[in-house]
């Protein structure tokens, strides 16, 4: 499946498994032992409908008890909202840490086995996912992004409508809670 942005079209053989069903997405997260949720600046720079993108992501993090890595300037908005982040690295720095299987993770409990991205600038996220695909075989990656990411292990299909995107978040939150 072609990602939304032409710049992210894959030139390679190993491409993401598309997960259309939030039930399945939630199930993958639940099976992980030490997941990490990476939030990029699109989450604070955009709304989905009338609600800040970040609020949807925080709902997911809360429902799944996912530690957060706030990249770029996301920490500031979280702080204004009274939410403490588990860590604040920039995107390249956190990927550089994740490459090392011996890294102890943001909670110092061992490296993460599942990395989920949302709101990272799409062309940059795709490069970061490529790094992890090639150099971090010890973990799996999920791109919770409506524009779809072929270099992730698991990706969404392209979701063009805001309402469908909201529905996906709602479904994911509901299934992470259950």
């Amino acid at each position, binding site marked *: 499946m072609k990602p939304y942005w032409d710049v992210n079209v894959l030139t*390679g053989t*190993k491409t993401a498994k598309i997960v259309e069903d939030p039930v399945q997405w939630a199930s993958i997260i639940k099976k992980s032992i030490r997941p990490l949720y990476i939030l990029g600046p699109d989450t604070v720079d955009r709304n989905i409908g009338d609600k800040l993108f970040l609020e949807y992501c925080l709902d997911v993090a809360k429902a799944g008890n996912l530690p957060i890595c706030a990249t*770029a300037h996301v920490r500031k908005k979280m702080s204004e909202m009274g939410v403490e982040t588990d860590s604040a690295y920039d995107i*390249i720095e956190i990927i550089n*840490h994740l490459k090392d299987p011996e890294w102890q993770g943001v909670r110092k409990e061992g490296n993460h086995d599942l990395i989920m991205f949302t709101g990272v600038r799409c062309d*940059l996220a795709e*490069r970061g996912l490529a790094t992890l695909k*090639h150099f971090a075989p010890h973990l799996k990656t999920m791109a919770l992004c409506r524009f779809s990411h072929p270099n992730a292990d698991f990706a969404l299909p392209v979701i063009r409508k805001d309402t469908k995107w909201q529905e996906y978040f709602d479904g994911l939150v509901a299934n992470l809670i259950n």
Partner: protein
Amino acid sequence: MSKNKEETLKIIKGEDAWEPVGPTPLPDITDLRNWSMRLLKTYKPFYAPFCDLCCNCTYGKCDLTAGKKGACGIDIATHQARWVLMQCCMGLSAHGAHGRHLIDYLINKHGKDYKIDLGLQVDVEAPIIRTVMGLKPEILGDLRTVIEYVERGLIHLVSSTHTGQEGHYLDFENKSLHAGMLDLLAMEAADIAQIAGYNYPTSIADTPLVELGWGAIDKTKPVILAIGHNAAPINATIDYLQNNNLEDKVEVCGICCTAHDVTRRSDRAKVVGHLARQLFFIRCGIADVIITDEQCVRTDVPEEATRAGASLIATSDKICYGLEDVTEKEIDEIVKMITEEKKQVLILDPDKAGEVAARVAIAIAPGRKKEFINEKTAMKLAKECNGCNLCSEACPNLLSVGKSVKEFADGEVDKLSETFKLCFTCGKCEQKCPKNIPIIKIMQAVATKETYKMRSGRGPIHDVEIRQVGSPIVLGTIPGIVAFVGCSNYPKGDKEIAEMMDEFARRKYIVVASGCAAMAAGMVKDKEGKTIWEKYPPGFEAGGVLNVGSCVANSHIAGAAIKVANIFAKLPGRANYECIADYILNRVGACGVAWGAYSQKALAIGTGFNRWGVPVVLGPHSAKYKRLYLSRKEEDDWNIMDGRTEKMMDEYVEPAPEHLAIVIESKERAIVSIAKYCIRRNDTPVGRQIKLNHYIALYKKYMGEGFPDDLHLFIRKPTDVPMFFKREVMDYLKKIGWKPRQQVGLPTLINTYPTKANIADIK
């Protein structure tokens, strides 16, 4: 291959005893390899493959995904490193060939013994050439010697990228660093040649403010547009116009670095803008004649010139466009071919090309209509949009082009106007449009026609300026030198460059700019209507904002750092690369920012700065370069020697600078990080206080309350803590169990690895 010592000394005029010859004159690829490897031990290569396959030879395609090797045995990391070297070599060869052409041309004009005189303020005329090669260039012929050395190195570097050659990523990286070093060397030679040969401004800081912006171009006059980086042809146009009293009657303007260099020749010339405005401006039809020279010129200029009704003169053997070479024809005949037969031509003689351009523009301009599309017509065209959004999907800057066009069709102008500010005008959106909507043309109706000012390029930093700021830079009381360089592939438009520069100038950093970044910075006005070029002083001083000039003038930024070591600290510089680079890495708080880097040249430049020990911050698009140099501050090797005692420090030393090449996603995060990357291990307590004061203040401004989670790593003793945050920081340090540690007396990496460098030189 071992070098002949006598031959080396002959090339660098070893008998000329301005300084003793250091350990590495005319270094080959492996002569500085140990320095590279020491850097790479701390700043490890980080690869982000853009493509998982290798298509380099007929064994392939080979899939290198996740541990697989190619038929030749190469793995993905080594393949990425090879790509990076190839790209660095492309960049190096572009600058090197540019330098070669300019130097040969100017030697033909003035003779090889033409003296290099950079004015009363510049005695150390070529800090890079002196330090790398051991040569002190005095005449144009010496600059040819520099280019010959660069060419020799380039052959070996390119050779190593052939299938079945180099097989380890670290050695590819050493070669990339070597290519970057040669790149800066070639650039220095090129810029010195043009300063000397064209009498560009030198030894003055207060260079003229020139007009900037497409709205500044007077379309009622004949307009000649130069695109590229080699100003020889357009300078010839200036000469022709001046000699024939026509300067008032013809508009000369430029896009990209040629614009910088023509305004150094004549402050009446104007700057249209950076390279991202190329297609947009050509399609506006304002230019009567387009002169292309070399580098960063669109490959479809002939087609676009025809479409716009402009004449085209290609002038470089690098860009011939399949055109007829008319160099040997008489000028009258060429003018006739262009004006009457409507031919596009290739003229390889810059003087001839310059005169032809002027005569053609004067001849054809009266017959050309130059009307922009009006809003009403543009909206009518936009109404064809069916909302398919294929244009948006094609956008390399991830813009919602389709939505903007659709809203514009409905009468909403602002969104498209904002989109234009972020647009590279590459035209990919139009290619995808099933309705063939001329999106770039429509943007004429919404693009601001405001005019701006940019300070023209000043060339080298003056020796006297270095003497004045050397001490505060090394002690840390001037918090840093921040250099905004490179191309215009900005994630969020020109505004971010102006904002970043303003933030650091206000905080009394020394802010330097060059190339497209200098133009972008000028395309934003403050509330009082002033650009950054009108707001701050032009000297190399705290709070100064300088434009060194075009791409090749980037060499003067590295040159300034070298001069701090050589002039202020009196380190012997001649053929003494490692000592000078070590000094810069550990003691000169400089940071490069290539926020919109797109080209192979920009990669080579950045890599060259890295080898000198200068960290470079890149914007998000630059992840596509595939390689960065990153450390992990709490895990990597920060061991260092105290040069005074020549003993290794036995405790943790701060990770400064933390990275050598890093991509950062947002302007806000970049600003905070740049302040941190100006910290050096040599900072005095007062200097460290000042730097940390900015780091903390910027963190609070852009990242929210609290402190950076690595703050404690940069505090050696309580005297390092900024007074303004003293109580708050000391409470925080107590809470996290921070313990004071020693300051390194004379931080150095020399002798921590096998080297011919002499540690006595750094004392």
